[in-house]
Every structure is written in structure tokens, then in C-alpha cells.
């Protein structure tokens, strides 16, 4: 902002030199006139309020605020959450029924891994649970340093920084770099925490169509023309592209090589959110950079949470020290929040160990994804949305009924049908009014390496059956 003003000032001074003499004389005269007006007579400006005390009291008396929260009518009770008793691992007890879990993002099955649990326990016995402070004030533990080092090494970057909450990671990272006046190009399918980060940054946000590089290039070209008109401003306007490796809202992979090309062509930095792709894509599970063989240094910042593949809590950012270190003083969720409980960091370290020891798990996961993906093709009424190697993909209605509420109800019917038959599924939930581009209602199917071939088959055939049963039924019903 400051630099923007400075720039305007320079231009003003320049304009001053270039102006013709009569112009300056006229302006000088006008300034004198204003000065005269200012000093000649004091105008009694209209008071903002000339209300008497009594009138004020009446206004205060009359004012009725809206209720804190909108009143809920009795016939629309708030939706009940499904209750899980016991862990959310492979076998899960939902609403009292034991099911196979096809809903939580425990891709590598590390949630109930004995090794991970034991490490967490050892750590608990050493450090207790909470950290009782932010990183700056004795909330930094040796395990945090170790985890940061290990993550950086795993991702082959210079440095990593951990956050205590997955959601807060990218939401804090974006505003640490992108400020008011800067420009961010973001995919329309970007997840909610990216949207919140963008909102907090107060930058100028330009959405491009989901995975549409032509649309992105169009926007970049537009910016280039603007830059040429206004080169001084262009020199201080930072620009970023924010994309997800594997989109949670669509199950698609971003076209990273093209993005990197655009990055150098238009000199835009890339911030990549990899919560879903970390520990999933690539031979060693390093995510979308490894998947495409893109040099990780070409990506300015990678952010991911540790709540999916690593099955712990928290998130991390990694990249070059030049970029990452900045967050240690400017990442709000890092500086102002209590640090990650050491036992959760210890669990994440052990999970990383397992990922490093056995790269077969990533191949196994991909095979399972492909398996169920093909098994789910051709269900009448339901469409599979997402890459075949994505462990989280969506089932959308082929034809919407026209009402979101009804669509949601239909999908819930399918879920209930499956849930009664030992397959736990969930819809992808959104805050309808808060999303910038609300995705269509869908069932989000999650594949984990713990699911056996039979279970995958069973889930696929059950979904097929349910779709037939529920969707046909409604068609008849109408």
C-alpha cells in the first residue's frame, strides 16, 4: 500500500513538471481561493446529530437488534451428525452399526497402526498432552524440530514449518505473503481453507475455470496488458497462483507442468495445497510434484495437512527457507496459536517412517483406487467424478432434480442404504452460503489401503444397488 502511494506521488511530481504555465497559475489561484475560503469565515457545519439527549434515549429505546442467531422453526430441526463410537479406523461403528469405513481420509491406514500409536504413547509419557504455549514462548519441543526436519527431508525441500491445525495452514500461509493490492489467481474449485486465506489476505482475487489453463492464461495476459499501462505499479504488485494438487471438491489433479510453464512465462509464484495428494501421489508419496516429475523448487510453497495420509493432526508448509522462514513471524496460525501437542508430532514422525520404509503402499493405494473406480462406472443415475487414481472421489447425480435439497435427500438415501449394509459413506458437506462456487451435492468415496478387494467390490455393488433402489424409486414416486 505504502509503495503504491509513493508511486502516485512520483507521478504527481512528474505531472507538475510537465504542466503548462497557465495551468499552474490557474491552480495556484484556486489554491489561494480555497485558503481564503478556509480562513475568511467559519461555517457552522451541520452537526452529525443535533438530537437532544431525550431523542437519543428514545432511539436507543426503540432499537431492536436481530436475534443473535436466526430462529429455527420447529419443523426444520438442525441436522443430526452421525455418531461414531470408537475409532474412525477401517472398521467403524456409526450410529451403533459396525461398517467398513469409506468416508474418512485415512488413506494409508495409519490411524490405527500399532507403531504409530506406540510412538504417540511414548511421547505422551514424556511430554504430557498439551504444550501450554505458542511456539515462541516455550511451546517449541524437540519433537517439533525433528518433525519439521523430517518433513523437509521427505519432501526434499530446504525447510518445513508445522501448524497445529490443518485448516489453519494454508489459510495462514496465503495472507503471510499476499497482501492488499496483490493479485491472486485461484482455481474455482479451490477448497474452503484457501478461500478463507484469500479473504484474510484482502488481495485482489481472480478466479479461473477449474483446471482450465487457457482461462488462466487469458487472465494472465489481461494482467500483462494492465502492467504495460502501469509499469510502476506492476513492479510492486506480487502475483500468485493458488492451486490444489488433488482437488478435494472434484477429485481432479492440477496440470502442474503447464502451471510451471505459465509461472515462468508470466512471473507468477505458485502456492500449492497438497492436503489430499501428499502421501498419495508419486512413487514415494511426495505428492503432485513427484507425480508429474516437476522440480519441487519450481513451486514456491507447498502446504498440506497431516490429518489425511499421516492420520495425525495439524499441517505443514514446505519450500525454500527464503519463503518458509517468513511464516515464523508472519503466519498468524503459527505465531498466535498453541503449538501442536508433541504426541501428535511424534505420531506424524512415525507415520513418515512407515511411508519412507515401504513405498509399496502408494502403489497399492493407486491399484485400489483404480479398482473401485472402474467397478463404479456405468451406474445409472450416478456419475463418478474424479481421477481414477484419486483416493477421494465423488458420486454425483447424473441428473439433478432441480432442487439441491431434494438431491441431498436422495444421496442421503443412498448413504443410509449402504450404511445399513455395513458400508459407511458420507456426503461431501459444504456451507452452501459461504462457498464461492458451490460444488454440486455428492457422495465422497474414500479409498484406503486397508480395504480388501472384496470390500471394494461389495461397496461398488451396494452403491449400484442403492442407486437403483433409491433413484428409480423416486422417479416412480414423482
Amino acid at each position, binding site marked *: *500500500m*505504502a509503495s503504491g502511494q509513493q508511486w502516485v506521488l512520483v507521478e504527481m511530481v512528474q505531472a507538475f513538471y510537465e504542466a503548462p504555465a497557465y495551468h499552474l497559475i490557474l491552480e495556484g489561484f484556486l489554491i489561494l481561493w480555497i485558503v481564503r475560503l478556509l480562513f475568511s469565515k467559519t461555517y457552522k457545519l451541520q452537526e452529525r446529530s443535533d438530537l437532544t439527549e431525550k431523542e*437519543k434515549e428514545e432511539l*436507543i429505546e426503540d432499537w431492536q437488534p436481530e436475534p*443473535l*442467531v436466526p430462529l429455527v422453526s420447529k419443523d426444520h430441526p*438442525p*441436522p443430526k451428525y*452421525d*455418531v*461414531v463410537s*470408537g*475409532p*474412525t*479406523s477401517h472398521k467403524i461403528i456409526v450410529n451403533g452399526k459396525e461398517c467398513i469405513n469409506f468416508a*474418512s*481420509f485415512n488413506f494409508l491406514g495409519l*490411524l490405527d*497402526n500399532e507403531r504409530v500409536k506406540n510412538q*504417540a504413547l511414548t511421547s*505422551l*509419557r514424556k511430554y*504430557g*498432552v*498439551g504444550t*501450554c*504455549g*505458542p511456539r*515462541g514462548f*516455550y511451546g*517449541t*519441543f524437540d519433537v517439533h524440530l525433528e518433525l519439521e526436519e523430517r518433513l523437509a527431508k521427505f519432501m526434499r525441500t530446504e525447510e518445513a514449518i508445522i501448524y497445529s*491445525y*490443518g*485448516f*489453519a495452514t494454508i489459510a495462514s500461509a496465503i*495472507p*503471510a505473503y499476499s497482501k492488499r493490492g496483490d493479485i491472486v489467481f485461484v482455481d474455482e474449485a479451490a477448497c*474452503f481453507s484457501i478461500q*478463507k486465506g484469500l479473504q*484474510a489476505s484482502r488481495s485482489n482475487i481472480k478466479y479461473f475455470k477449474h483446471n482450465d489453463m487457457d482461462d488462466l492464461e487469458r487472465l494472465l495476459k489481461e494482467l500483462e496488458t494492465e502492467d504495460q499501462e502501469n509499469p510502476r505499479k*506492476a513492479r510492486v504488485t*506480487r502475483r500468485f497462483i493458488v492451486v490444489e494438487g488433488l482437488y478435494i471438491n472434484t477429485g481432479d489433479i492440477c496440470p502442474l507442468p503447464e502451471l510451471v510453464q505459465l509461472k*515462468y512465462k508470466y512471473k*507468477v*509464484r505458485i502456492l500449492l495445497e497438497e492436503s489430499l495428494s501428499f502421501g498419495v501421489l508419486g512413487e514415494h508419496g511426495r505428492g503432485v510434484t513427484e507425480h508429474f516429475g516437476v522440480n519441487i523448487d519450481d513451486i*514456491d510453497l507447498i502446504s498440506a495437512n497431516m490429518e489425511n495420509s499421516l492420520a*495425525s*493432526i495439524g499441517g505443514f508448509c514446505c519450500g525454500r*527457507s*527464503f519463503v518458509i522462514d*517468513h511464516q515464523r513471524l*508472519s503466519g*498468524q496460525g503459527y505465531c*498466535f*496459536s*498453541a503449538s501442536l501437542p508433541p504426541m501428535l508430532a511424534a*505420531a506424524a514422525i512415525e507415520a513418515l517412517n512407515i511411508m519412507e520404509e515401504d513405498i509399496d503402499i502408494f502403489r497399492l493405494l493407486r491399484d485400489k483406487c483404480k479398482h473401485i473406480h472402474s467397478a463404479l462406472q456405468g451406474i445409472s443415475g450416478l456419475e463418478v467424478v474424479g481421477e481414477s487414481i484419486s483416493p477421494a472421489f465423488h458420486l454425483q447425480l447424473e441428473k439433478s432434480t432441480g432442487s439441491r435439497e431434494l438431491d441431498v435427500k436422495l444421496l442421503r438415501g443412498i448413504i443410509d442404504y449402504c450404511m445399513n449394509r455395513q458400508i459407511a459413506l458420507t456426503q461431501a458437506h*459444504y*456451507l452452501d452460503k459461504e462457498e464461492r462456487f458451490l460444488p454440486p451435492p455428492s457422495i465422497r468415496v474414500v479409498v484406503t489401503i486397508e480395504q480388501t478387494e472384496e470390500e471394494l467390490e461389495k461397496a461398488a455393488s451396494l452403491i449400484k444397488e442403492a442407486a437403483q433402489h433409491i433413484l428409480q424409486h423416486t422417479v416412480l414416486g414423482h
Partner: protein
Amino acid sequence: MLIRMTESSVKKLSNGDRCYRTSNGVKPGKNGCVKNHYLHQKQHCYPEEKIYHVAHNGGLYKRPFNEVFEETPMLVAVLTYMGYGILTLFGYLRDFMRDWKIEKCQNATEREEQKDFVPLYQDFENFYTRNLYMRIRDSWNRPICSVPGAKFDVMDRVSYDYNWTFKYTGKVVKDVINMGSYNYLGFAENHGLCADAAADVTMKYGVGVSSTRREMGNLAKHEELEKLVARFLGVEAAMAFGMGFATNSMNIPALVGKGCLILSDELNHASLVLGARLSGATIRVFKHNNMQSLEKLLRDAIVHGQPRTHRPWKKILILVEGIYSMEGSIIRLPEVIALKKKYKAFLYLDEAHSIGALGPSGKGVVEYFGLDPKDVDIMMGTFTKSFGAAGGYIGGKKELIDYLFTHSHSAVYATSMSPPVVEQIITSMKCIMGEDGTTFGRDRIQQLAENTRYFRRKLQEMGFIIYGNNDSPVVPLMLYMPAKIGAFGREMLKRNIGVVVVGFPATPIIESRARFCLSAAHTKEMLDTALRMISEVGDLLQLKYSRHLLVPLLDRPFETTYEENEE
């Protein structure tokens, strides 16, 4: 909270609510004086001589309310400014030398391939970090390798390049007395009831959940916790979240929006400020704990309505904290509630530091003043501090919580709380409530109150200037001068005491301070040792500034309140 002045903080300052505090700090005479002059007749440094405020507040207060902010001595203020002046001069000199390659530049640099990109940071933004913060960086982020209990072990580290990088020597400084962690009730433990329960849950559940509350991560345990929290607070219902910071920043937007007004204390935590900004509501800031300022804003808001359109505000939300973690002050809750009722505003009370730490049975600032929790519309707090866990909660009427269950960003998009963490909270909270059949909880609360009073009294007697309320376990000790920030931190660690020091921009520029957080786990011996060392270092660094002067009554107008508008 930390000393920091990077790009974002500069910007934060230029449009955030701390901004005017610092500008205030530029005028020595005005700074450091009374923060709460409303209805104050006299304030003494000695509790023995205190004049109770009960008399001045129409009986709103059922207990004495003693909050002291001794004025900054003029000489100290002048010297502090000189200190900053010299530091800045040297900073420019060294930057000049770095530019001319006389001094080695230690900054990490941009990749060669991206040198022609728009710079990620502007050079001047890092001036403060490079030239001031870097000199004393060793006072922060000290890694520890044990429970953050009454004593902890600090990892020894050295720097051979003036704090640009640290090397760990592998040695450990054992048994440092911990005056820095927010371990108010001493529940940061690796043995005992809570840790055992958490251990069982770890083995049964694992540590993660890998789903959100709304989807497949709503454990019965979460619901158990929420019922317990509601019972503990004495409210109809409650909801728990995985991170304290996010509890504020992700729920305030669910409650207010465009056309609503937020009245926020100037010293509110970053998370409240962020939440308020994300909500899109208009934000107006009142002076810290100043009821006159709050009332004026409330009146004006209702009388004038929204700017330009003059439409009435949809709702007005007052954001305050129970204990302010940098000032050690306690919110004047009885007055806030009276105002809130009079003007039909809603009250959002952040009890991050006060829950567990105040009140005869640890129920926070509401209980401390003997008030009814129903008068606070939104009771927010964290589990990080008194409960030795992590996360946050919101409590209130059933309608409110039902609404949050459907509209909270956190419930729909963020992974739910880790089961062992939940268990730690459940066990520690039951202990505080006495539901474990023991009086351990109550004893701890009492111990904390005693420790607080003892420690504060001793420091005052020694002649330090300390801020805040006599009952607040957060004790800021004024250092003022920038050089003393680092010196105090280092000297104390040399004497095996771990303290927190803070300076600009977390505090006004001349009000750098050290902060002690008391804990029920501190024994009298530990406190005495700590006090002896503090006194010793205090003599060494000449920190005993207090002249035991009465704080003058300054009824200056508060023209500095300002408004922030989302575009």
C-alpha cells in the same frame, strides 16, 4: 505476541487495531499511564491501601477490583526512545555495510531463476527483524524437551553468527523453573489421572480422526466433552473445536456479517481480530477495558446507525477477553454486562486465559465476579492453558450451539479433535469440578490464587513496575528498554529460570516487558527462588523503576477510537 515486525505486522499495524497503540507510544508523557480511568478515583500500588471500586460502580462489583498501571517514569521513557534511536541508526549503518558487501549478508535469498519476479518481500519491511529482532532472537522459540510443568528442560543452543542460525550442543539445561507456560492449573503432566486416561484412549483410538465433525469424525467422545463443558460453564450447550485460534476466527463470521457492528477491545488477541475481519462486519475499537469509551461507541452506533445509509445496525457484538495476556488485566465484566443489557448488544467473551484460572471453582471470569453465565451470550475459551490440552470451545444457549453445529466453518471443513486430547480435557475438567471424588482440582485453584497474590505482592515490594489485576495469574513486569529485553531473558535463563519477554509490536513501543505466568504447580520454594533471581537481575539491570506513585487520574477524551470497514 512475539517481537516481530515483518511485512505483515507492519501492514497489520497500518490497518489493524494495534496501530493507534503504537502511535500513542510515540508521545512519552501519554504512554504507560492509566489504562482504565473510568470511574477511578485513586489507585494504589499497595493492596493494603486499596480503595475499593465497589463504591464507585453502583454496587456492580461484589469484590474489590484492583488494577494497576503505574505511569512510565519520564526518564525511562526518554532513555527507551534513545535506545530505539541508536538501534535504528546502527541498523541503517549495517544495512549500508551489507549493501556494500562490507558485512556478510545472512539473509536467505531468492532463487536465481526468480530474481526478476516481483520481490516477495519489500526490503524495508525486514529492517526491524534484521537489525533489532535478530540481536535478541535467542530469547524466543527456545526448544524444550520435557513436560512444560513447573520445571522444564531447555535444549542448550549456541549461535556463532549472531543469532542467524542456532546450533544445538546436545546438552540440556535441566530443571529450569518455568515461568513462561500457560500451565495455570498444572495439568501439563505426563503421569497421573489425565495422562493415564489419555494413554488408554491413544491405544484405543489412535491419535487422528481423518474426517470432519459433519462427515465421519463426530465421535461419541466429542459429544461427551461438549456436554461436560456445558455443565462446567453452566450454559445450555457447548461445542468444541480443534484449535483455540480457529475457534475465534472461524466462528465469529458465522454469528455476524455485513450490516452488523463489532465493538472490539483494542488489545484483543489476533484471533478475535481476524475473526472480526473475516466476518465482513464493521469493526470499531474501544480503549482497553474502558467502559466510557465502550458506552460512547454503543450510544453513537445506535443513535447514528450505519454510516452513510443510517440504517439501524442489525446487531452489535462486543468482543472482550477475560484476562488480557499481555496486560494481565481482567475485564470489567459487571460493567460490560450492564452496558450490553442497556444497549441490547451481544457479548462475546474470550476466556482463553481466565477459564480455570479465575473464580473459586475455576469457572472463569464470570464466576470471579459472581455473575450469571446466561448474561454472556457467547462464552468462548480454550483448552490449551488450564486444561493442559489443545483446542477451544464455545458455550451458550441451545439455539446458538445448534446454529453453530450447522454453520460453523470448523465443523464442516476442519478435522475434528484428536481423541487423546479430548480425553485429557474430560479428565482434567472433571478433576476441576471435583467429579473424580477428590479435592485435587479445588486445591489447585486455591494454590494458583495464593501463588498469584504472593508473587505479585513480592514483586511490588521489590520495587518493580508490574501491570494488571491483583488476581490475575499473568504478571507483566515492565522492562521498557529494548536492550533489557534480551538481557533479562538471558540473565534469567543463566539462573535457571525460564521467562517470556515481549516487545514491540506485541506491546507499545516503549512498554517492553517480561511476563510471568503462575501455575498451581509452582511450590513456594520455586517461587521464592524465582523471586530471588528476579530481584538479583532486577538490580543488575536496574529494573526496579517503581516509585510507588499513585496513578494520576486522567480523564482524557478518547478521540483515538476508530473504525475499520470491510470493503
